């Protein structure tokens, strides 16, 4: 046992604060508490009024939307000449609803047929043949990471030829799939493309005109991000609009309709008077990361589009839309985290951190993820697509290429199984497994839009 050193000299240094100081501070705190109660009462009254108005609106919206068909998770699309799928698909989309008559897992479906499609058109030269890779996968980061993981797990042991993975945007990846990329070179083609959105009818038409006539569509999971803080302080309640106003580089000018100003907001209460007067501070991964990209394209964009004139830009000036809605401020309010993140979050009640959903969900004892517009991020809300910080990811396979390419077959089968068995290798949240569900890879001729 150690001999305790004499620490009396330290003990004696303590001093009591003056009574005047203690009573003055206590009185200030009590006053603050009273004013907060008043503010809460006002907020409560406002909320009741909003609920009455909003409830009516929701009821009307529900009446309009009910009857929309359930989405499919996995399906195969024929875009051959005999099946004018793209135009039907376009017609469905223009109507604003999900594609109809698609056999979904929840609707029963049929056993998956062999993945050998009928040949209806002379295929273009495979990307893999051009690049000397087994096959080529292109897409955004989340898809590529997932694909690499699946390749490692499901494909035969390494050989001289390996799959090639090209990191690119969704639009570029789909263009590569359809060989509409400028200069159809080895680097410009893909056998499998990942996208953070569904393929557009115009892109399907491009595919068909380039001889890519049979595609499989697999909804491979959901890329989901959350803003979280230390569980010490409970889950924040924010709106997508709050997040956009807090973190965008430019925000709408309150004094000039349809004008933008450099983001002046420093506290959450400045963004929304119902929030606390706390400094806005968000820590996150590098802006080049998949998580930051997903954040910009989900939560930021969702908040941005709450301003109708900014939402309209998506159609009229997509470049400006992306610049305004997806550019984060660079004045230090959002900054990359560095070491001791958890400690920082515990120390600073106002500090939020951006995480991939799976990362945050793995630490329920330390992190509390923010609800967005009243929706908590969890598997149910992600799959229901009601949580604003999530987006479905799709993989499109040129199934002409699967014929005679066992490695690619193994890969695609592995991808499909990852969806079937409700797991995902990297960051994607897999759709939940449904009882007796059969993932549906429809014979092409039966595919209906």
């Amino acid at each position, binding site marked *: 046992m150690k001999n305790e050193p004499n620490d009396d*000299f*330290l003990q004696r*240094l303590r001093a009591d604060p003056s009574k005047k100081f203690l009573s003055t501070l206590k009185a200030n705190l009590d006053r*603050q*508490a009273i004013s907060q109660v008043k503010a809460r009462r006002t907020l409560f009254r406002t909320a009741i009024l909003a609920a009455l108005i909003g409830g009516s609106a929701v009821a009307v919206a529900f009446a309009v939307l009910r009857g929309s068909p359930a989405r499919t998770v996995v399906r195969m699309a024929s875009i051959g000449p005999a099946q004018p799928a793209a135009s039907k698909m376009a017609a469905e989309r223009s109507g604003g609803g999900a594609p109809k008559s698609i056999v979904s897992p929840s609707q029963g479906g049929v056993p998956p047929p062999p993945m050998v499609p009928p040949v209806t058109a002379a295929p273009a030269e495979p990307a893999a043949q051009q690049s000397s890779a087994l096959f080529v996968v292109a897409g955004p980061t989340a898809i590529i990471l997932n694909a690499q993981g699946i390749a490692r797990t499901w494909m035969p042991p390494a050989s001289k030829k390996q799959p090639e993975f090209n990191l690119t945007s969704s639009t570029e990846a789909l263009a590569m799939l359809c060989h509409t990329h400028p200069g159809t070179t080895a680097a410009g083609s893909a056998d499998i493309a990942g996208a953070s959105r569904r393929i557009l009818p115009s892109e399907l038409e491009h595919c068909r005109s380039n001889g890519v006539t049979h595609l499989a569509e697999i909804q491979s999971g959901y890329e989901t991000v959350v803003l979280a803080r230390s569980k010490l302080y409970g889950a924040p309640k924010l709106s997508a609009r709050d997040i956009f106003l807090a973190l965008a580089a430019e925000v709408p000018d309150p004094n000039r309709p349809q004008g933008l100003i450099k983001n002046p907001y420093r506290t959450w209460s400045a963004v929304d008077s119902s929030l606390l007067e706390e400094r806005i501070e968000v820590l996150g991964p590098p802006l080049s990361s998949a998580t930051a990209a997903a954040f910009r394209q989900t939560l930021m964009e969702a908040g941005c589009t709450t301003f109708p004139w900014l939402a309209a830009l998506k159609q009229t000036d997509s470049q400006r839309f992306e610049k305004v809605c997806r550019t984060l401020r660079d004045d230090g309010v959002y900054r990359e985290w560095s070491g001791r993140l958890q400690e920082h979050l515990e*120390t600073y009640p106002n500090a939020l951190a951006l995480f991939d959903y799976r990362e945050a969900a793995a630490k329920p004892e330390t992190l509390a993820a923010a609800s967005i517009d009243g929706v908590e991020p969890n598997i149910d809300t992600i799959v229901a697509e009601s949580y604003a910080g999530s987006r479905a990811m799709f993989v499109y396979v040129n199934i002409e290429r699967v014929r005679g390419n066992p490695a690619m077959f193994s890969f695609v089968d592995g991808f499909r199984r990852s969806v079937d068995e409700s797991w995902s290798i990297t960051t994607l949240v897999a759709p939940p497994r449904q009882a007796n569900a059969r993932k549906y890879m429809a014979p092409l001729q039966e595919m209906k839009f």
Partner: protein
Amino acid sequence: METNELNWDAVYAHEAPRIYNYFRFRLGQDSDVEELTARTFERAWRSRSRYRRDLAGFATWLFKIAQNIGTDYLRARREHLPLDAALEVTTDVTPERDAEQRSNLKRLALLCAALPERERELVALKYGAVINNRAIAQLTGLTESNVGTILHRVVQTLRDQW
């Protein structure tokens, strides 16, 4: 346990002197201590609805806030160090030679100036805030035994120089 089960009057009466002394030890002076104590309680007061008693001891939560405020204050003071203070730091005045002319708190500050930041923090938490080694371990990320070992060595060093 619900937040509102905390008796905030009792909490304030118990914790305010500890926070106050934490800052006295941390800063080695009496000036600004009241301001930092007030700032700590005001921040905790504003955030008190978020405190989850089942997740962390109240003192741990409160001292996390105090540590944060103290760190910000010291960082700002370093960045804006007055010229005379800077000269004082860089002179060859030894603690032994000057100590007799200074208050005990100032003497402690001078002695602590030679210690690493982490050890100064441990002294402030242990003797200013009167927090036990286990809670200090929670606040600093050190193990409890490590806290005990470091404090033992630091107190011995300070005692020898006192």
